[in-house]
């Protein structure tokens, strides 16, 4: 079974952590992954840096810029994941690649999926890959290499489209908590709770993870009341940028 499916079957209150590959240093990938697995992260999203990250706020923009200056590429990331014998390869912690479509297209979609599978990746999030293009062009390739493609929903997504996304999802749905780019530090307010409740009442078949704007223990535990878990990105990146140890951050959350 795909480790993502296993995780959602076995666990509630799932903590997923996002970090940008190649940040703060080119070779940080292994140490961050090992520390995340060691300190109790349930799932990990590895960000592929891109020059023009449209959906990201300043923190992830900055980490992407630094990562690219450091020389991070998709090829190198796969090499790191392949050769470094990261602990997560033996653990059950699912690894997900998250990035923008253009670098992946240049690498070649099938090549990307094949290498991802080899590197122990379980799922992929490409926010600017439209669902219809995924279905008509890339679904067979994802399935061939046993990769889950993760779709996003937002407070503005229509009910009809959410149903369609739910139908097409086989990993989990990435529920963007507010109409914003990543890193908005606005917590979980009444308006968001209303939206979370609305989605919960839809009784979707897919597990749901809440992301964007979740930055601390309060936000995480609130999100967990409405969904299978939550994703933290920008707050974690700000933490490691200060040179603080990875496990300290995770302890603050769970």
């Amino acid at each position, binding site marked *: 079974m795909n480790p993502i499916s296993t995780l959602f079957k076995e666990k509630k209150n799932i903590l997923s952590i996002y970090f940008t590959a190649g940040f703060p240093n080119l070779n940080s990938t292994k140490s961050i992954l090992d520390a995340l697995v060691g300190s109790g992260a349930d799932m990990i999203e590895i960000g592929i840096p891109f020059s*023009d990250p449209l959906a990201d706020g300043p923190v992830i923009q900055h980490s992407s810029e630094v990562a690219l200056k450091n020389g991070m590429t998709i090829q190198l990331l796969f090499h790191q994941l392949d050769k470094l014998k990261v602990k997560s390869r033996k653990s059950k912690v699912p690894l997900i690649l998250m990035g923008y479509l253009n*670098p992946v297209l240049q*690498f070649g979609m099938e090549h990307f999926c094949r290498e991802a599978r080899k590197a122990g990746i379980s799922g992929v999030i490409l926010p600017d890959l439209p669902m219809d293009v995924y279905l008509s062009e890339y679904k067979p390739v994802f399935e061939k290499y046993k990769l889950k493609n993760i779709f996003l929903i937002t407070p*503005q997504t229509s009910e009809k489209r959410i149903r369609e996304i739910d139908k097409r999802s086989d990993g989990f749905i990435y529920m963007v908590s507010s109409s914003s780019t990543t890193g908005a530090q606005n917590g979980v307010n009444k308006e968001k709770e209303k939206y979370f409740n609305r989605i919960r009442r839809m009784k979707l078949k897919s597990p749901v993870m809440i992301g964007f704007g979740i930055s601390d223990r309060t936000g995480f535990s609130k999100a967990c009341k409405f969904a299978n878990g939550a994703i933290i990105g920008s707050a974690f990146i700000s933490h490691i940028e200060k040179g603080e140890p990875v496990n300290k951050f995770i302890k603050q959350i769970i």
Partner: protein
Amino acid sequence: MRYQVNKKGYYGNFGGAFIPEMLVPNVEELRNHYLKIISSKGFQKELGSLLRNYAGRPTPLYFAKRLSERYKAKIFLKREDLLHTGAHKINNTLGQILVAKKLGKTRIIAETGAGQHGVATATVCALMGLECIVYMGEVDIERQAPNVARMKMLGAKVIPAKSGSRTLKDATNEAIRDWINNPVDTHYIIGSVVGPHPYPDMVARFQSVISKEIKKELKSKFKKENPDYVIACVGGGSNAAGAFYHFLDNKKVKLIAVEAAGKGIHSGHSAATMVLGKPGIIHGSKTLLMQTDDGQITEPYSISAGLDYPGVGPVHAHLFKTGRAKFVSATDEEALKAAYLLAKLEGIIPALESAHALAYLEKLKAKKNEIVVVNLSGRGDKDMATYINKME
């Protein structure tokens, strides 16, 4: 061969809407309504009246006698430079602000490079009494101070784009991020035939008035509505899209698009996307794109801030691949020369962008009786610092 957009938003293999889910509701709303809105009689009447009484349409199709003598062809200049705010950009911003109003939007955002589209957007926002926010790269803000002042005087808020290379591409990123953060009340007025479908088609339709007027004028003067050549400069490609629009299906009309070669196509300082680009995704559109082997978008260069965009409208990528339009390029030097020449021979100071189109006249081997229309997309006031600096 089909040159207009198809139902799915593609020009051949190019176009589409490669956008994150956060933008889907806005772009869908626009896609579902734009054709109905702009084809309605009320809209056409209102836009037509604004184009005529406010912007100054129709613009003259001026027979450039001395330029024609020099190049031994019948050269006409489509005088978009005479429009209000100094360039063709106002054709699009007037159209889009009316669409925004019909959609009930109260807040307008835009990106700008040299500031021409920013000024044209600030202008129509003032006219309609709508809030206006213009994103402009920090680097461009420094080098285009007069246009920044114009936008401010018109009541717009100019926000510096401080990410990436801090130029047009990054200003566009910031505008898109703003739209993600303000999905309900905001309309994004994109300035060129770029971005996700339906933008390339919508902007081309608003600019198509250029070729419509060329046809009409030629017919009334020469009883021949089709020129032999239409020449236009291409950055994102909105003035070219408008100048080509009504001639696309008539292959007898030779379409020539002039890109900015900067310091030379292979100098490492160029914006010649057709030569240097590969298929990729930029700002929600699949098109030809200047990028590294790893798919990171690279920074183009041109003396003209309006042409240094690393992508190009998907319609142009399609016209290039199908061979319907011929894509050539002019260097900074060639464009400057053409600008000085036009000033001396015709008493017209062109925008640096339009000077690239004029520069191709040196290489065009037209026959004596052939009609050549050059789209003079903008005037050179904004470029005087550069012209003075380079004058010897």
